[in-house]
C-alpha cells in the first residue's frame, strides 16, 4: 500500500497490466494524468498523436500486430467524440483496447460543463464495457476489470471515463488483478456432443470446405488450424481479417472469400457439402445473398461468441469455445483423409480468374501502372515478410488480393467498419509494436488525406513506416460503383489533390512519385534502402476496377470478371 493520487494510481495500474506504450492527446480534464505521466516517462512511452481518432487507430494497429491491449489517453468532450470512430472500429473487428477519457469532476456531471459529454451513454453501444470512475478508490478495481474484459473471450474496446476529482484525490493504492467476473463468461463451455457431431460430419464429407476468420488469429490457433486442415485434407479460404492466419503459399490455402475475393472459394461455397466456418461471422461482404448461400451444405460454425451462431447464416452444428481448444478436439476424432479430386476442382476457377483478372493486373507491361502490380512489387521487395496495413477502398482490396504473407498477425485493416483514414495511424501503432519488422501501408489519395496529420507523429517519433499511396485522383471505390451501377454519373468522387511529395517533405519524410514501371522499381529500391519513413506516391490508372466483384446483396456465385 502506498498513498498516491488517482492519476498516479491509474498509471501504476496500467503498468501492472504490462502496458508500456500509450497513444494519446492531452487536454484540460486529463491534465492530472499527464502530469503524473511526467514521472513515469521511463516506463511508459507516450506517443503524441495529432488527433484522437489517430490515437485509437494507432492503438488498434498496435493491438492487432502484438496481441496486447492497445491503450489511449484522451481528454473529455471533443477528445472523446473524436475517438468514437476508432472505438466502433475496434468493436466490430474485435480488437482489444482500453480508452481512458478525461471527464469533468463529479460535481459538474450533468450540468453541461465545459467539455462535458455523456461518455458512457455515447460509448455503451460500441464498447464491450464502459465505466465511469468517480472515486480514486475504484481505480485499481476498474482498470484490472477493464483489461480483463478487453483481452479475454472475444476481445473488444473498453472505455474508462475518469473524472477529474478522482484523478486528483489521494488513495491508498495497491494494484488489483481481475480474472473472474460472475456475470461474464468469456469462453463458453465446450460441448463434447457438438465436437463429436462436427467430427462425424467432416468424416462423412466428400467436399468439405473451411472458412478461416480472425478468430484463428485471436486464439493464436494457426498451428491447430493447420493440423485440422491437413489431417482431413480440407481446402480453406480466408476472410479479410483472417488473411495471414495461413501463409499465402500454404497448399490448402485457396484464397480470399467475399465481394472482391477469389473466384474459386466463392464458387465452391455453393458446391461444398460441409462448410466449416472457423472464427468468422458470415459478414454480408462474405456471404452476399444469404438466402442462396451454401444452401446445399451442412454448416458447422466454430466460434467463441454464442451471439454469432445463426446470427447471419443458420448453423447446423455449432461448436462454441476458443478455436485453439475446440479444433484439436475435433482433429483428434477426424479420420485421416484425402480430397485430392475435390481440391483439384478449384484449379479450373483459379485458371479462369488468372486469365481474366490477375494476369491483366500484374503482367500488363504498357500503359498506366495498375494498382495490383504496385502491391505485388512491394510484396516481392519485402519477400512476403512485412506487416501489411491498409486504408479502406480499392487500395485495401488490391493489397489484400496481391500482397503475400509468410507470418501470422501481419494483416492490419479496417474490416467491419471500413474506416477511411485508418491506415496512417494504424501503421504507426503496428510499427511501434514490432519495430524490427517492415510495415507497409497501402492507402489511396482519399484516405491518406483523412488522417495525414499523423505524418507529424511519424516525424516526431521517427517511426519508420513505408507508405505507398495509390494515387488515381478519384475516390476510387465509389467511382467504381458509380461506373458499374450509376451509369457513370461520377457524383462527388473526383479529387483535386495537393502535391503529396511536398507534404511529405514538409514533415521531413523522404518521398518520390512514380509513373512508369522503371520509376516504380527505382522508387521501391530507394524506399527500402533504409529503415526510415517513406512515402511512395504511385500514379496509377485513373479508372482501375477491383475485380472480381460480387455486387452487394447478390448471390456469392454472381461474380463479375470484367
Amino acid at each position, binding site marked *: 500500500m502506498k498513498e498516491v493520487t488517482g492519476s498516479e494510481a491509474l498509471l501504476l495500474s496500467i503498468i501492472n497490466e504490462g502496458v508500456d506504450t500509450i497513444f494519446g492527446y492531452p487536454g484540460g480534464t486529463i491534465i492530472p494524468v499527464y502530469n503524473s505521466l511526467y514521472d513515469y516517462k521511463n516506463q511508459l512511452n507516450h506517443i503524441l498523436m495529432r488527433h484522437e481518432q489517430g490515437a485509437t487507430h494507432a492503438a488498434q494497429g498496435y493491438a492487432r500486430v502484438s496481441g496486447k491491449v492497445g491503450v489511449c489517453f484522451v481528454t473529455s468532450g471533443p477528445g472523446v467524440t473524436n475517438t468514437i470512430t476508432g472505438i466502433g472500429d475496434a468493436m466490430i473487428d474485435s480488437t482489444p483496447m482500453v480508452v481512458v477519457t478525461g471527464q469533468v469532476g463529479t460535481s459538474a456531471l450533468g450540468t453541461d460543463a465545459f467539455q462535458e459529454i455523456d461518455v*458512457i451513454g455515447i460509448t455503451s453501444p460500441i464498447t464491450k464495457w464502459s465505466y465511469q470512475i468517480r472515486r480514486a478508490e475504484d481505480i485499481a478495481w476498474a482498470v484490472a476489470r477493464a483489461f480483463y474484459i478487453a483481452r479475454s473471450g472475444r476481445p473488444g474496446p473498453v472505455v474508462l471515463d475518469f473524472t477529474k476529482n478522482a484523478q486528483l484525490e489521494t488513495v491508498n493504492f495497491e494494484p488489483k488483478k481481475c480474472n473472474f467476473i*460472475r456475470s461474464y463468461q468469456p469462453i463458453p463451455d465446450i460441448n463434447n456432443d457438438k465436437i463429436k457431431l462436427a467430427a462425424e460430419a467432416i468424416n462423412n464429407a466428400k467436399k468439405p470446405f473451411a472458412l478461416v476468420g480472425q478468430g484463428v488469429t485471436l486464439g493464436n490457433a494457426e498451428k491447430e488450424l493447420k493440423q485440422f486442415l491437413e489431417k482431413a485434407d480440407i481446402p480453406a479460404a480466408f476472410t479479410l481479417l483472417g488473411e495471414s492466419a495461413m501463409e499465402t503459399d500454404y497448399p490448402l490455402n485457396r484464397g480470399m472469400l467475399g465481394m472482391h475475393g477469389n473466384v474459386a472459394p466463392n464458387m465452391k461455397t455453393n458446391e461444398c457439402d460441409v462448410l466449416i466456418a472457423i472464427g468468422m461471422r458470415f459478414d454480408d461482404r462474405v456471404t452476399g445473398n444469404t438466402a442462396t448461400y451454401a444452401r446445399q451444405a451442412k454448416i458447422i460454425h466454430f466460434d467463441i461468441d454464442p451471439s454469432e451462431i445463426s446470427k447471419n447464416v443458420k448453423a447446423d452444428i455449432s461448436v462454441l469455445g476458443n478455436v485453439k481448444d475446440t479444433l484439436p478436439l475435433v482433429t483428434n476424432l477426424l479420420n485421416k483423409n484425402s480430397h485430392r479430386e475435390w481440391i483439384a476442382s478449384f484449379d479450373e476457377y483459379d485458371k479462369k480468374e488468372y486469365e481474366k483478372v490477375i494476369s491483366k493486373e500484374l503482367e500488363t507491361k504498357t500503359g498506366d501502372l495498375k494498382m495490383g502490380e504496385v502491391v505485388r512489387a512491394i510484396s516481392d521487395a519485402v519477400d512476403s515478410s512485412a506487416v501489411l496495413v491498409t486504408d479502406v477502398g480499392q487500395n485495401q482490396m488490391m493489397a489484400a488480393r496481391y500482397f503475400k504473407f509468410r507470418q501470422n498477425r501481419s494483416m492490419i485493416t479496417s474490416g467491419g467498419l471500413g474506416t477511411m483514414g485508418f491506415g496512417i495511424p494504424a501503421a504507426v501503432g503496428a510499427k511501434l509494436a514490432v519495430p524490427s519488422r517492415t510495415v507497409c501501408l497501402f492507402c489511396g489519395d482519399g484516405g491518406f488525406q483523412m488522417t495525414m496529420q499523423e505524418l507529424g507523429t511519424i516525424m516526431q517519433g521517427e517511426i519508420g513506416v513505408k507508405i505507398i499511396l495509390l494515387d488515381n485522383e478519384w475516390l476510387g471505390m465509389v467511382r467504381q460503383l458509380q461506373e458499374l451501377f450509376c451509369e457513370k454519373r461520377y457524383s462527388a468522387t473526383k479529387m483535386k489533390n495537393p502535391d503529396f511529395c511536398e507534404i511529405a517533405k514538409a514533415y521531413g519524410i523522404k518521398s518520390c512519385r512514380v509513373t512508369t514501371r522503371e520509376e516504380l522499381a527505382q522508387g521501391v529500391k530507394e524506399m527500402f534502402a533504409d529503415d526510415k519513413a517513406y512515402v511512395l506516391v504511385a500514379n496509377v490508372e485513373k479508372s482501375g476496377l477491383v475485380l472480381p466483384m460480387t455486387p452487394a446483396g447478390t448471390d456469392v456465385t454472381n461474380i463479375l470478371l470484367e
Partner: protein
Amino acid sequence: MEKKLYTITVFSENTPGLLNQITIVFTRRQLNIETLSVSPSSIEGIHKFTISVYCDADMIEKVIKQIDKRIDVIKAYYNVDEELVYQEIALYKVSTEDLLDSKLESIIRKYNARILEVDRVYTIIEMTGHTEETQQLFEELNKFNVLQFVRSGRISITKSPIEQLNDYLDKREIRRKEIEGK
C-alpha cells in the same frame, strides 16, 4: 415467420446504465418493448428486468444472446405465455358519484377488482390480471368515464421446476473457486 409475444427475463448486476445497455439491443433490431418492469430480485445485489416484446422465434434467440453478451448481465432467458404465470396491475380513477351507480358496483364484483381509496370526489379501483382482463374492465368502466388509468409492466414467474438462475450462479461460484484456487 410467425410473431408472438415473448417474455424476457434479465438478471443483472446492479450497475448504473444497465437498462440503457439492454434497450440498445431492441433499438438496433427495431423492436418495440411492449412492457417493462424492473426491480431488485430476491438475491441481494441482483436486479431483475421483465420485458415483453412481439417478435419471431429467430429474432428472440438473437436478442437474448445479444443481451446476455453485455458484461454486467448475469443471465437472460425468454419464455412464452404457456410457460409462465404472469400478472399486470392496473389502477383506475373514477368519480365517486358514478360509483354510487349500482351498475358500477356489479362491474367491480364481476372483475374481482377492489377499491383502494374513496374520496368525496374520486375513487381508485385496482385490478390485477392479464392485459386483456384489465383492458376489459377499463372499457366497462369507461362507459362511466375513467378519469385516469395506468397499467404496470408484466411480472412473471416460470412454471418450470428448474431455477435456472440459481443453477447458473452455483456454476459460476464453482468456477470462481477454481480460478482463485489456482
